[in-house]
């Protein structure tokens, strides 16, 4: 029987036309004298043709092609991370604009506005300023709100950030798992 196990690989290769002339002759000679290997070949001839590719419909193929081309031609649909530089630039502009407003405040009133922007965020501006140039103050406050939202490390991580961190850790875990555990497992199964 052990003898036939060696032939099984050759028989599979013979079935797919992957044996050379010499090997083919060996297989045929062996099958001539071995009923079990002949039966094996018969089984392959019956079973294997039943496994056929599941051809997708034209609509499925068209849709999948369109999805690929959408990604290839218009890489505009960027992920949040890729948008980060653009976001940072926009934030910079907002900062500049609000500093500009502060200076304008200084020009108009002759008095310096509360020096740092952070102060502007935390405390309402002095009443005198408000009455003198209400429009400007409102605008400045609007901008400082943006600054606060985009400002780097807030003392508490918000929920979205925590989730993102968790997801990233998960990725690391997955990769390690693949490297250390699963490859060996896969190899063992395949041997």
């Amino acid at each position, binding site marked *: 029987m052990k003898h036939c196990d060696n032939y*099984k690989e050759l028989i599979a290769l013979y079935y797919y036309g*992957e044996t050379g002339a010499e090997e083919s002759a060996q297989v045929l000679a062996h099958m001539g004298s071995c009923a079990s290997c002949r039966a094996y070949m018969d*089984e392959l001839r019956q*079973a294997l043709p039943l*496994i056929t590719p*599941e051809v997708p419909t034209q609509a499925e193929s068209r849709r*999948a092609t369109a*999805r690929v081309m959408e990604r290839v031609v218009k890489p505009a649909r960027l992920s949040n991370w890729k948008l980060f530089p653009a976001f940072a630039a926009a934030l910079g502009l907002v900062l500049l604009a609000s500093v500009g407003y502060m200076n304008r405040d200084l020009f108009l009133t002759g008095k310096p506005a509360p020096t740092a922007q952070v102060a502007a965020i935390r405390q309402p501006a002095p009443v005198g300023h408000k009455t003198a140039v209400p429009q400007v103050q409102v605008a400045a406050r609007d901008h400082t709100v943006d600054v606060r939202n985009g400002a780097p490390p807030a003392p508490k991580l918000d929920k979205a950030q925590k989730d993102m961190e968790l997801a990233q850790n998960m990725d690391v875990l997955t990769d390690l798992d693949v490297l250390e555990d699963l490859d060996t497992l896969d190899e063992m199964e395949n041997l």
Partner: protein
Amino acid sequence: MTPDERDLIAAAVAGDETAFGELVKRSMPRALAFARQMTGSQEDAEDVVQEAYVKAYRSLSGFRGDSGFYTWFYRLLANACLDHLRKAAVMNKLLFFRRENKDEDERDPVEDAPDPNAGSSPEALVMGKELKKALNRALMALPGRQRAVFLLKHNEGLKISEIALALGISEGAVKSHLSRAVASLSTSMKDYRGGRNEALR
């Protein structure tokens, strides 16, 4: 490779998106069919195929055009499928409770496939369908690399040497994977027949 395909490849390598689109369009049915049998799900197949094509587009400059587009693309596709299977296995291990009802939700590709026995007696039809189902289950139960080797040979008709190149393994390993896959499938057919005969008795 047809001269037409050679032109398309050259144009795509030179940055012509329309030419690349034509190559994608032509190879998509085979790619989807392969990925569907590798992943066992239409949805996963579409995702994997998409990733593989996007990767192909990015690495087009490394394609010298000495083989057909699809032969070159197999490498990316087969490896994308294997990566997907590994990740899915890990996720199932981590979130083992998540996919309990997967079989019920998934549409069964065997049921949807056109029946080659159409027109024969109803009994033979049912039997053929059930046997196909049993074989498909056995195919899905093969380890990923065995399944990839088997499909590349059986459905795609690649040579042993081409499969070795596509999967980055030795020709000896390809032969051994192929022979094991074939043996498992033949055993499952025998088991199915055996079970049927038992039931009839």
